[in-house]
């Protein structure tokens, strides 16, 4: 990101630049550019939440089988086809991706948006935040299989930034 702020306070006062922009932004803020927000929104509009959500969670459980430790109550997770077809995996995948949909509408305050979910995942669910990063990467790979050439490097970069930021927001209240 180019930094256009004047290098000294004296310069800030004498030049055209408004003073308030010389103060530091809160360090919890991830800044998405207009282009990044547009890239996220345009793809999100075409996402089938049911399909992408369930496939993303299924791939997490298949590619990283140790993540199954979080889903003892889900029943049959013994093979790729069992996991892909498991109704609890589908339901939970849809729930998780709906939550992502919420993230796309609050990209300027992800930490605030995910406060409650963060506390839940720490205090009640005891989920290692590394799993949020892994799941984010699964979502991206599923998007790549669905959107193919349309999932350009630039679009991936915007979505990568979003999934990383959501993972951080979900980890934010951990203690």
């Amino acid at each position, binding site marked *: 990101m180019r930094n256009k702020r004047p290098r000294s306070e004296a310069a800030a006062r004498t030049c055209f630049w408004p003073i308030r922009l010389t103060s530091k932004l809160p360090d919890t803020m991830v800044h998405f550019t207009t282009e990044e927000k547009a890239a996220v929104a345009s793809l999100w509009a075409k996402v089938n939440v049911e399909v992408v959500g369930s496939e993303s969670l299924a791939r997490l459980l298949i*590619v990283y089988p140790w993540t199954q430790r979080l889903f003892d109550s889900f029943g049959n997770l013994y093979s790729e086809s069992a996991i892909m077809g498991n109704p609890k995996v589908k339901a939970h995948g849809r729930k998780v991706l709906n939550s992502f949909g919420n993230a796309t509408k609050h990209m300027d305050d992800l930490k605030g948006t995910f406060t409650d979910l963060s506390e839940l995942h720490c205090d009640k669910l005891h989920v290692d935040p590394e799993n949020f990063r892994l799941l984010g990467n699964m979502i991206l790979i599923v998007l790549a299989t669905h959107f193919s050439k349309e999932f350009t490097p630039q679009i991936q*970069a915007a979505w990568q930034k979003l999934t990383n930021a959501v993972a951080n927001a979900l980890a934010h209240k951990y203690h």
Partner: protein
Amino acid sequence: MSLTRAERTIIVSMWSKISTQTDAIGTETLERLFSCYPQAKTYFPHFDLHTGSAQLRAHGSKVVAAVGDAVKSIDNVASALSKLSELHAYVLRVDPVNFKFLSHCLLVTLASHFPADFTADAHAAWDKFLSIVSSVLTEKYR
């Protein structure tokens, strides 16, 4: 961690498709890497990294060719990549985290080019294979 017979079969068969497009796949993987993980660019101050750059294409091709060498010696990746392992350990010294970023971007590229072939099982096999390749390339670091 070692590959099952089924995983090896998946990788070798998908490689036959990849090998017809090594340039495109290599270039795209690096473009994705530098777009999503700008810190990776710090290892290439001497390169023109803009889209269409000849250096980017040449280097992408080299990277995918090395993956191909590993596929061809899938039963002994360590011996196939021994020289590259030394290069990375003693000369390049790329921080190990970047192998995860590169592997992820290669997986995204494969998923985008071969959506029908990149099933969950294929995805798992490739993720495991690339993590084996990454650990071979970093095993001499210390």
